[in-house]
């Protein structure tokens, strides 16, 4: 049922994706990386306020997972969700406008960085109370099964949600009722400043799957193909058998918990961060593509430029979008019949 850490390099089937798919994976990761860098700039310039949690370093998770989903499948996340939202297909212009608190944002500027929602892509948020969206994901899976549909929902959460009661309630209910939800734990080793070792009696998070009788495995989250492979197998099984899955991805965030913790230096060492940068998912994948001869360095430079241009456009769009009008304070509180 459970496996130990899987890496795509160990796969006997070779690279596993063609040039077009590889280009898509790379461009999606680059898009998120660039988006986050520009978001950090926007925060420094005072264009973005509140809490801002960057996804830099974790791009392979959202991109690898989303690459095996259908457009009508659902995704739901916590507050470090820009990457999940963009990977699911949201327009970066509207995501950036949301961070800027402008009227053209996905949530009309009412949600901000932590509350991105996009009905057009079945992206269900953007939830900033740790653990709370796990039962909600189970409820979406309940509705899928209730209607006899064959979609799945991928529920992203951090290692910080695992000690919460709702993680265990959600796992139990999903397993008990055999619901099509894939719990995808992004273990970046720190819940804010608390390491997994200081938070969990069982630090091998995938093993909680065994407790609830859920197929579970751990995967290298810096390897986009490994994530794609593991989530792809889970999605196929979940879609067919209507049973949940737990996947723990071993990942790392290069930035602090939020922009208010820019260095992240108190609870981890610079050496550790530098060491982890050696497994930067974008650098690794780029090297792999070139070595495999799927894309040339020139091709990749063109992709980079393309993504940079798209994010520049997003920033320009966000900056030009007006603030939400005052009367919007009182709209969208109750839905009228």
């Amino acid at each position, binding site marked *: 049922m459970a496996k130990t850490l899987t890496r795509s390099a160990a796969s006997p089937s070779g690279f596993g994706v063609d040039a077009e798919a590889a280009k898509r994976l790379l461009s999606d990761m680059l898009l998120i990386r660039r988006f986050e860098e520009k978001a950090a700039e926007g925060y420094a310039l005072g264009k973005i306020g509140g809490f801002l949690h960057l996804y830099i370093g974790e791009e392979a998770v959202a991109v690898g997972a989303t690459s095996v989903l259908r457009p009508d499948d659902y995704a739901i996340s916590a507050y470090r969700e820009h990457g999940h939202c963009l990977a699911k297909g949201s327009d970066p212009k509207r995501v950036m406008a949301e961070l800027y608190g402008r009227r053209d944002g996905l949530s009309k500027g009412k949600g901000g960085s932590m509350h991105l929602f996009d009905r057009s892509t079945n992206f269900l948020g953007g939830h900033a109370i740790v653990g709370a969206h796990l039962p909600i994901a189970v*409820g979406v899976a309940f509705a899928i099964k209730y209607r006899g549909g064959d979609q799945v929902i991928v529920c992203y959460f951090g290692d910080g949600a695992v000690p919460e009661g709702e993680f265990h309630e959600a796992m139990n209910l999903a397993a008990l009722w055999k619901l099509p939800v894939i719990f995808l734990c992004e273990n970046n080793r720190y819940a804010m400043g608390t390491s997994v070792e200081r938070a969990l009696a069982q630090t091998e998070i995938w093993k909680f799957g065994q407790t609830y009788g859920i197929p579970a495995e751990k995967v290298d989250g810096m390897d986009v193909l490994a994530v794609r492979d593991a989530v792809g197998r889970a999605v196929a099984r979940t879609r067919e058998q209507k049973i949940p899955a737990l996947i723990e991805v071993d990942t790392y965030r290069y930035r602090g918990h939020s922009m208010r913790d820019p260095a992240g230096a108190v609870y981890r060492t610079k050496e550790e961060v530098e060491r982890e940068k050696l497994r930067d998912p974008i650098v690794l994948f780029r090297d792999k593509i070139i070595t495999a001869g799927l894309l040339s360095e020139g091709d990749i430079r063109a992709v980079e430029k393309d993504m940079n241009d798209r994010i520049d456009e997003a920033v320009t769009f966000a900056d030009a979008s007006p603030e939400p009008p005052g009367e919007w304070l009182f709209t*969208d509180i109750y839905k009228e019949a």
Partner: protein
Amino acid sequence: MAVMTYREALNMALREEMRRDPGVFVIGEEVGLYEGAYKVTQGLLKEFGPQRIVDTPIAESGFTGVGIGAAMAGLRPVVEMMTFNFALLALDQIVNSAAKMYYMSGGQFNVPIVIRGPGGPAAQLAAQHSQSMETYFYHVPGLKVVRPTTPMDAKGLLKSAIRDDNPVIFIESETLYNVKGEVPEDPDFLIPLGKAIVRREGTDVTVIAYMGMMYRAMEAAEELEKEGISVELVDPRTLRPMDTETIIKSVRKTHRVVVVEAGAGFAGMGSEIAASVTEQAFDDLDAPVERVTGANAPMPYARNLEKLKTPSKDWIVAAVRRVCNANGS
């Protein structure tokens, strides 16, 4: 019209709405096989099956979250809290998820969910099982809060709550489940949320009360009638949104107000209504607004102490006399 209990009226509302809309389902502890801890869901498992009458383990936050997710995906869950005391375990889901989803998604995801079950003072159930819970919810923008006093209201308001596109907190009462009254059998009978009702016309004083307190206020009104004091009884029925229009209209007629609530008075419904009346009808008042509230203490177990905690008919009579005497009548 048929005469039935409050419990049967709720059961009828659930049954009718489930027949009407295949997206309506009931989820909670002991709602199916056990037929409800208070038998509100009696017979529903037999008619609708386990897919739509969903028994859960004891995991209030978990199954409330399941309801919210199902509602976001287009279903209409009715979540039963075995008692509303247990809803505190799901307070984060209710307040941070259900109430705010529509707003923080910029109008993309509404949450059509009803969370229902008994609450308020019961008989010797002590501090954790006998308390008025509505205060925890009616403060929150995005929630609607209903407290139905009669069997007819129980049916008509529950049906409206299920059809509403927003999260509705629907708090019943253990002490009212066996109360009988006339209930329309028409499956299209609805009582709109946010509309108060004048239960008794009067000219000297407006008494505002709901649930068990309304029944005590009715007894008080009978007694006061004999003394020549004419009491108008207003039942808000929905606490959020509050029908202040009906309340103010009554105040303009009687010029005196007593608000009765079972819960502790501090920052309670009485405070809110007193503030609204003062803001909107100060010049119409002939006496200060009087509050009759539960004592500011947890609910004790001992029968004699319990009596001291919750407003009685006599407390209401005394308060009415005070506001009337204040005008020298």
